[in-house]
Each structure stands twice: as structure tokens, then as C-alpha cells.
């Protein structure tokens, strides 16, 4: 089947089997390998992309379903050569280690900040609860999201600087 969609602001097309998962289309056909596959059961969120602005697990959508849609992947976070505040904050706050969950985590967080410019720690932890991280224990991810928030909320108290 032929599909046409916008990915990170660019028109992209493909001629694919209906069974091709969106994540495989994005990674394989478009070569955008920043989105990852971490599980088979829609559990981990490593494959998260924004579909018409809302974070979804691209391993649980067929690419044909995205026909005519607007997709944003981690590769589309930068604007005019500038890092998105969430990207800068993830580095600054050490919100990543192995980097595998990071793209999905940042996209989910970016959408949260679009909806809610000053999320509380609970808001952040709730919004990110469909994205699993094995490395960071989430503490610094929460800090990064708070740091990137347009209207900053109270920072997380986490003891003394190590």
C-alpha cells in the first residue's frame, strides 16, 4: 500500500505491506533510528513518537494507520539547529544513561510540557509512566522535565549532592 505522511515536517512516502509496524517503517524505511524497540507488548515506550501531537507507541500501530498523519520523532526535536529545552535539560540533569529509552522519554515529556507548562512531580511521574527506564531510577528524568518546564515548579529534593 502506498502511504504519504509528514515526518518531522517533511513529506515522506512509502509503499508497504499493511502489516508493517510504524516503528519498522520509521526505522527501516525512513532510516530514523532514534526510536527504538524494547519490548513486544506495548509496555516499554522505547518506540514512542508523537502522532498528530500525541505520544503513542509506534510498535503498536501499523504504518498504514499513519497515512496522512503528522509524526514527530526524536530527530525532529531540534528546531533551527537549536536543541529543544527538554534535550538540553536531559543532558544538564543527567536524565539519561544508556540512552535507549531517552528519545521516547523526551517526546512524552515534551508533549506534557506543551499541555502543562508547570507540572508537579506527580504530574511528571504520571505522564511518564508508560515509558520505562532501566538506568536512571527516574529521579533525574523528573528533574530534567522540571528544568525544561516553561514555568518552573519546585525542584525535587533528593538529598545532598553526591
Amino acid at each position, binding site marked *: 500500500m502506498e502511504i504519504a505522511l509528514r515526518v518531522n515536517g517533511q513529506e515522506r512516502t512509502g509503499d508497504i*505491506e499493511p*502489516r*508493517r509496524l510504524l516503528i519498522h517503517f520509521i*526505522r527501516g524505511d525512513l532510516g*530514523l*533510528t*532514534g*526510536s*527504538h*524497540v*524494547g*519490548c*513486544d*507488548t506495548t*509496555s*516499554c515506550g522505547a518506540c514512542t513518537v508523537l502522532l498528530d501531537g500525541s505520544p503513542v507507541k509506534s510498535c503498536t500501530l501499523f504504518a498504514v494507520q499513519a497515512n496522512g498523519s503528522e509524526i514527530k*520523532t*526524536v*530527530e525532529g*526535536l*531540534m528546531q533551527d539547529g537549536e*536543541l529543544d529545552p527538554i*534535550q538540553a535539560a*536531559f*543532558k*544538564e540533569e*543527567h536524565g*539519561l*544513561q*544508556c*540512552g*535507549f*529509552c*531517552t*528519545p521516547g522519554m*523526551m517526546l512524552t515529556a515534551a508533549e506534557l510540557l506543551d499541555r502543562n507548562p508547570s507540572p508537579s512531580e506527580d504530574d*511528571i*511521574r*504520571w505522564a*511518564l*509512566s*508508560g*515509558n*520505562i*527506564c*532501566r*538506568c*536512571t*531510577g*527516574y*529521579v*533525574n*528524568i*523528573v528533574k530534567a522535565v522540571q528544568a525544561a518546564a516553561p514555568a518552573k515548579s519546585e525542584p525535587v*529534593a*533528593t*538529598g*545532598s*549532592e*553526591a
Partner: protein
Amino acid sequence: MTTVEETDVHGIGQSVKRKEDDRFIRGKGTYVEDLVLPNMLHMAILRSPIAHAKIVSVNVDEAQAIPGVVAVVTGELLAQHNLAWMPTMSGDTQAVFATDKVRFQGQEVAAVVAEDPYIAHDALGLIDVEYEPLPAVTSPQQALQPDAPLIRDDKEGQTDNRCFQWETGDKDATEKAFQQADKIVELSTFYPRCHPSPLETCGIVADVNPISGKATLHMTSQAPHAIRTVFALVAGLPEHKIQIITHDIGGGFGNKVPVYPGYVAATAASLLIGRPVKWIEDRTENLISTGFARDYHMRGELALTNDGKMLGIRVELLSDNGAFFADAQPTKCKVGLFHIVTGSYDVPAAYLSTQGAYTNKAPGGVAYRCSFRVTEASYLVERLVQNAAYELGMDPAELRRKNFIKPEQFPYKSATGFVYDSGEYERAMDLAMNELGYAELRKEQEAARAEGRLIGIGMASFTEVVGAGPSKDYDILGLKMFDSAELRVHPTGKAILKIGVQTQGQGHETTFAQIVATELGIPTEDVLVQYGDTDNTPYSLGTYASRSTPTAGAATAMVARKLVEKGKKIAAHLLEVSEEDLEFKVDKFSVKGAPDKAVTIQDVAFAAYTNMPEGLEHGLEDNHYYDPPNMTFPFGTYMVVVEVDADTGQWKVLRMLAVDDCGKVINPMIVQGQIHGGLAEGYGIAAMELITFDDDGNCIGSNFMDYLLPTSWETPRFETHMTETPSPHHPIGAKGVGESATVGSPAAYVNAVIDALAHTGVRNIDMPVTSAKVWEAMQGAARSS
């Protein structure tokens, strides 16, 4: 001349932002699955649906006939090339693809190699395997029954399911200690099977060049050099024609230490077909077939006097090793470093006996974020100590304090033979208690109990043993556990450090550069750290068991010091003084007493290529192979406060506070991050992570809907603090830290839940501590009171 302060080179002790992040935050990391090579094929593995069965026949005709299928690889085909079996990390053998029997659900039986992964999976369904089912053995207790079905009938001389039997410590002295005891506290507990589950599964792109015969293996490995050697031995390939490239690794936690059948099969397929072959595990494959952790049945006894002095510890272990003995551990250790079970305490006598059993379960026994069974040992002793406190009517903290090894006792030789390098256990515990407000919380606990609310305070004061070698004591498959570093300074003063240890997210690109910065004065940003390519890095036993900093970190400091020594000769030539008149500080060689008369390391580097004194070799580079004189012993105290719902057994962490001491801290930000991660994984293990099996050997916990990993929502909000007690034998005083929190924290969480119920007589709930188990414990306590 301007003065460069120590802080200007961004060396040891500073929270330097990570260099590797620049690519990760842009989605530009390169993981094995991201690789696309010209003409690359895709491999998918057919796995046994049953736990124990004879293979009657394997018919691949239909699968072979699908357009796009290039080859179907069976055990029989591998056997023709002498590749049907491979050695494990513990010197046992493991089937690459089953030829005679399948011995666990999920075992590799055959593989399809196709032009496209979808086609490969279509073809898998068309391979027809006829099995003759055999009774499954699903527990070590069952395995050791005299009439149990024999699992390893492939092994000559193997007549039962016993995998090993081992003991250590002084049996008689321990017996005597127990005879003298006023009190003996016993705990039988099962540390269940869990799985490291890095978010990236295992995978390989095997690229064997049909002309040169060179095998370039892009693979997820925590120990690429060791794996290269194993591959050379297994496949009979010349080692100089094996190159292992790891790229970025999406977490390891021990899961990516062993050699798995998929790696071997993909390599064999590439060799036979002459095209690159990619194999990427799916999550189910990862959970049901690759290295699990723990699965330990433990019985511990602690002998004490009435006033709380520990006299001895006695431990009996039974381990479930699965179908093949594939624990990743030093050769001489059958239970890893479990003999750290004396923990932070001055226990005069200890004895440990253990046996392992084959069962119809996946092989593994990797250390999930743990230094070879240290987690199990630490869990057992920290749980025992708390129970002992209840029996003695003492506060658990005070019982610990009474028995801690005192600072002046270091180096301390434990009853099981370890020589602890350094520790200030009381300082860490006091900091934790103060920061938590321990005394106040005990009062609140009392008051809450009066209202019918169940608050529990748990702690663990763990000591770990990490950083193997020394090589005289530790090896894996004969490969000695030293490590290495190679440092090259370019004429303009920029440097490349090559190391063999393998980051999986720990931040080596940054922290190892910081070591160079402090030792050699070249700023961290001017040091490129290279790793993950066996052709271009020095030999290493890899990154696991928290060994990178203790071994390769030391090697890095040592090689930098070699360059300082050479640099001094060059500086003496440049400054026209004698070497003895020079001192090196931060980044400068200066004349003693005349600090203005100085040259920088950059000046020296330039001279090394442009203006060398006669008789000195050109260049400024060297390497160092570091054989640690001892292991390092990080420690800390973790405290957890929980509230248990008396009606449902649900428990919630109210506070989780960690004090860690890993000696000299290289990068506080990164160390703190390592601890956060370990505390979260420790929480997962304590609360929800579980792989179990039904009576037929079907794996329960085979995907992330059943094998639960904690999310941001339920993961506790950690508070972390540090003390710093340097290791006296490590060149920069550092110890390992990556695993402390997974080792120490499970006992703290469980102790907290037990503490909430202890007044009703509850003394044990096995992990994962589900609300159902808590409720059942409460019901049991209510019935017996």
C-alpha cells in the same frame, strides 16, 4: 604564565556533563539494531515450546520453500560444522541449537535466515518439529530426588542432576561458635529468579568476509575481548580475524556478558552464506532464554551472645542453574563471591555449603547488576541481622553498630578469606540515621501502630566486594581478570585513551577522561575515550561486577603516570634542568622553588614530536596492564520507610534514603545516577520482578506484561548521600559503585515491610513482596496469635 587550577581541567571529583549525551539526546546513538549493511540478511530463531522433550524430527522443507528465505539452520547443520555445542562461562557445555533433546522452554532449535525479518518469522511457523515430551524438572529440590529424570544425559558420567557441590569457610570453628551461642537466629528464604532486562535486548550483525575470512561481529557485549577469545576457541576462527564492535549498548546489567546461541548461529550463518546476518532478540526471547539471575534457596543461621555479639554465621545454599551451568563467575568460585556473606560485621567464624542443580529452565546465573552472587549474600545477612535484632530485643541499628568492623581493623581479613580494604561503616550508618530522622521515626512508628497504622523502617548496611582480579585468584575460563589502558597524546596536546572495558550507559567516555585530566593535566574535553572495538583497544575482561573503575580506571591512572614520567624527562630537556629538580602539578612541570619556570603538558607533548632530547624515544604514548592487588569493598547504609495497608497488604515506600561510600568519587553526578538506577532495580526486585514456572516448565514472566519493571509512578523518590573512604590500594582511591544499590537495597525494602509487621511475629516474606504475600503473612500471624 597563567595558573591552571585543578578545577580547570575538569578532572576527578567534578560533575562534568557527559560527552556521550550529545548523540543520545539527538537520537543519534548507534545501537546494533540500527546497523544496516549491504546485502544484510535477517535471522529469526525457532524455540522449543516445551521444557523437556526428545527431538524426533525437524522438517524444514516448507520453511525453506518460502520466497525470500535463504537458509534454514538446524542443530544438525551446526553439528556438521562442530558448532552444535559451545562452552559456558562456568566451563560447562550448552547446546547452540538442540540436536538430541530440548531442555528448557525457549531453547534454540533452528533458525531461518531471510531477506526480511517479516519473512523470516513467516517461515519459522512452517518448520515442523516433532517432540516426544519428557517429564519436566522445575525445582532444584525436585531435581535432586533420586528418581528425577536425568536432564544432562549428554554429559558423560553425569548420572544425576547435581551441577556442583562446594563449601568454604571453617566448618569446625563455626560449629564451635554455634555451640557457644546464647541465641541462634535462622532464616530460610528464596531469592527468586529475576532478569536484568536491559531495555535493549541482545543482538548481533555478523559479517564474515568470504574473501579474507575476517569476522566482524557487531554485537551487544559487555566483554568484547573475552568474547573474541571465546569465539576463537569455539569456532576455531583465528583470533586476529575476529573483530568485535559493540557500538552503543542499551543497558547490560549482566545480561550481555555471556555468549548466546544466537550470536554463534548468526556468525555461522554469515560464514556459510557469505553475507552479513542480523539477529535481534525480541523481548520474549530475551526473558526466556538469556541469562537470568539469582534463583537461590538460602538458609542462614547467625550465632550470637545475648548482648548481641555475633559469633558465627552458617549458610546452606541450593541454586537452580537451569539446563546448562552458565553462571558468569570466576573459575574457582562455584557460588560467585557469596562468601561476602559476613557483610559489614566482625564475625569470627563462617561456613558455607552449597550445591547446584540442573533443571528444565533457561540457563544463566548472570549477576544482575551484582558482583557474582554478592547480592544474594548481602540480602541474606542483612535480613538475618534484622531478625536477630527482634529476637534479642535490640534496635537493628544498634545490633549492627555493635558488630561493625571498626575503622582501625582495616585491612580486615574476614572469616571466609576476603581482605577488606577500607571502611567506615558507622559513619555511613549515622549519616543515614540522622538524615532520615531515625529516632523520631521510631516514635512515629509506635504512635501509628496505636492507631492501627502499620509503618515499617528497614535498613541494610551492606559491604560489597568488587573489582576482580587479582589475577592470581580470579579468572574466567582461564582468562585472568586484569585490565588495561592505552594512552596516546598528540603533538598539540590532545589525547586518546583506549580502554577495553565496555560502557553500557555508565559514562566511561566522560569519567575515564576525567582520570586522565587529573593525572596528566589534559582537560577532560581534550581526551577522547575509545572503546568497543577489539581491533583498536587493549585486552580487557569487560565491564560487569563493578570492575571498570577498580581495574581499567586504575590502569588509566597508571598509564597517565607513565606519561608524566616520560614528560618529566622532556620537560627537563626543555627547561634545561635535571629531572629531580622538577615537580608536576595539575598540568605543569615546574622547577621546584621557581614555579614560574615551567612548561605545560601541552608543551611537552609538542616537544615529544618536534624537539626530543637525544636518547629518548619519540612520541608520548604508552599502555598499562593493571593487575589489582586486591578487590575493593564499597559499602553504605540504606534506609526505607514503608506504610503497609493492613487490609490489603499493599505497601508504599514513604522514604528511601541511601548513603553510599565508593571511595574516591570521580564524577559525583554520574555516581549519584548509578545509585539511583540501582535503587530502582532493587525496588523492582523487592516488589515485582519475577520469573517463575508452572509444573510443566512453562515460563511465567516471558514478556513485560508479566515480567514487571517499575515505572516512574511507583518507583520511590530517592534521597542520596555520600561518604568518602578511599581504597588504600587503588591508584586514585576509587572503588566500584555501579552495583552497590542493587546489592544493598532489596534487603532494606523487605526489612521495612517485615518491620511493619514484626510486632505480630512476621519474620519473612520472600521476594517479590507482593501485596498478596504480605496479606497472607498477616493472616498467618493473626491465626497463630
